[in-house]
């Protein structure tokens, strides 16, 4: 593989992993609960804080990630019980309420922990290839993104809970009539979405300074990914949308800078919603555009 090709592939994988990690929890909550959590970025920030604080308290990095996943997951479940479940009837009110939560969290963290935390050193070091230098950690993250998809697939298509979740997405009332515990499922789903945000924050904590506005770098790309992916099939939506968007933003960012990549993402989102307003996952499932969507459909049989 030539160095130029490897460079493009590397950038693509980095962008893909970023979008996938940023959006996975959000898209799951959208598909299952039909609400958008505007505090998702702040959940990611909490994950980064939990990891960084535990790391500096002497916890090894791998364990610090687990602390963040469990901590933010539990926080999400508590929040669902206390607040979120009041808003299932009104999506727009849910958006506004979670916007309030996001304000409280980001400003509250700024108040309690100050403007920044000491960074975690990036693990694994780096390597050089054909005149470009790379960090191994980002490749590990890209591998992690595919790992997450694999775990998600096993969870959705090979476990009972995953099957109940898919049933809930397809027809909530019917799933409940057939014995899926609705309120437990809601709490669990929101907690799972929060845990995924915590994981994202934990994994990306070593890549930049941990500040109270840490989540803000994630939210714009995450929202675009979710808008394009749609919640009909969280796995398919996240995979297709993150792939599509990183194919657009990678050449733009490497030629014209990060900002051009961001603009490209937004324009792509506008054009996609004009013609495919339900999101990619809806059409992939309906029209079986690719062989693998038929594959997924086949495996859906219990």
């Amino acid at each position: 593989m030539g160095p130029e090709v490897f460079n493009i592939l590397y950038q693509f994988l980095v962008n893909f992993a970023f979008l996938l990690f940023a959006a996975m929890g959000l898209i799951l909550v959208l598909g299952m609960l039909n609400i958008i959590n505007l505090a998702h970025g702040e959940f990611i920030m909490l994950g980064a804080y939990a990891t960084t604080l535990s790391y500096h308290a002497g916890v090894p990095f791998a364990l610090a990630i687990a602390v963040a996943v469990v901590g933010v997951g539990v926080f999400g479940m508590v929040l669902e019980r206390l607040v979120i479940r009041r808003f299932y009837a009104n999506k727009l009110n849910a958006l506004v309420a979670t916007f309030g939560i996001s304000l409280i969290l980001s400003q509250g963290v700024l108040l309690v922990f100050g403007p920044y935390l000491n960074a975690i050193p990036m693990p694994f070091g780096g390597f050089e290839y054909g005149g470009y230098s790379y960090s191994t950690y980002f490749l590990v993250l890209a591998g992690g993104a595919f790992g997450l998809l694999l775990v998600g697939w096993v969870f959705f298509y090979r476990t009972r809970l995953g099957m109940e979740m898919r049933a809930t997405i397809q027809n909530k009332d019917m799933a409940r009539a057939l014995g899926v515990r609705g309120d437990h499922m809601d709490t669990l789903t929101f907690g799972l979405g929060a845990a995924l945000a915590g994981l994202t924050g934990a994994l990306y904590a070593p890549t930049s300074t941990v500040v109270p506005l840490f989540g803000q770098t994630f939210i714009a790309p995450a929202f675009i990914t979710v808008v394009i992916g749609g919640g009909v099939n969280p796995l398919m939506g996240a995979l297709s949308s993150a792939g599509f968007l990183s194919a657009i933003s990678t050449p733009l960012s490497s030629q014209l800078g990060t900002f051009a990549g961001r603009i490209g993402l937004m324009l792509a989102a506008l054009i996609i919603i004009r013609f495919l307003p339900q999101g990619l996952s809806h059409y992939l499932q309906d029209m079986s555009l690719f062989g693998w969507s038929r594959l997924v459909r086949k495996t859906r049989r219990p």
Partner: protein
Amino acid sequence: MSASGGPSTKAVTRSVVGDPGSPAGPGLLWRLGIDGPQSFFAGPVFWAIAAAVVVGFLVYPVFGSVFLASNLTNFLLNVPLALGLALLWGYCGVLSFGQMAFFAISGYVYGILAINMGGDDLTLAAAAMAIAASALVAVAFGYFMFYGRVSGWIIPVLTLVFTLVLETFLGQTAGYEWKIGEALLGGYNGMTGIPSLAVAGVEFNGFTFPLYYLVVALVAALFVAMRMLANSHFGHVVVAVREDLERTELLGYDIRRYQLVVFVIAAMLAGLSGVLYVSWGNYITPSSAGLLAATMPVLWVAVGGKTSFSAVAVSTLLLGLISDSLAVYSGEFAFVLLGALLLFGMMFAPEGIIITLAAWVRGVIRKGQHP
């Protein structure tokens, strides 16, 4: 309930006096559409209070200081933007986090034009073009959203993304390649030295009273105009769009066009606020389109009561004053409190705190009248 048993819709029976069903026939305000079924507050008591408030604002400079009047101007000039969001969200059912983006677009465009064309009467042309720029962007952006018939949650999410992308864009405009004519966009430090609006030698800046009077007059006029719009045929269709998209469409209305028009009106009102803000402070920074700034309009409208222009105007002014006086002690603390207000407001008074309180008071009074 009126004695003649007039129209039985909830909205009509809400207004007490000047009701079209009363034996004397519809009052003047009803016939003009200034009071109507889409206005929560109406009747002589309300208008007496409103007139007293306007008179209070007009005589305030007699005993108040220039400094306080200037502060008050800063809060008042947000009212058009908030009224626009009330029309869009409260009446049309479309939530947008993009009001501050249109505020910033208009502010920056006004700044670029005013710096290049010089002050004086030409600033009016600059203001008109700035508001037109906001409208143009809103048409382009709104077309994709409304004509794609996206589901309701996509619009707030995309407008929020749009606002954040705009902030990032404006933030990276430091350096001389971002000099447009004489105007330097200035990156995160923003654009400075923008001339204030001026007409016939009178300058509307933040240190003297003319801008204050202009803003008070504009807000009062817009308030009446918005009520007339809401109670017109157009306003009723807009409310129908909020209540039921499919049904309104089956009645023959192009719902996409109504949504787009309301979105553009809201963007123009936000643009007006942007121009007034730049005229007030002579500068604008990208933080106008930041996440915190984008929160504010939603906060004002949600806490006041999105279906009432009166409640939104009051809450915009009050919350501006409150957050400003809190921020003197601690900005972060002020925002935590505002966030809590938004969250608990949505949990316990989703129709708005002012509206909920007013409905409760009205209920108590009615109970007293008919035991």
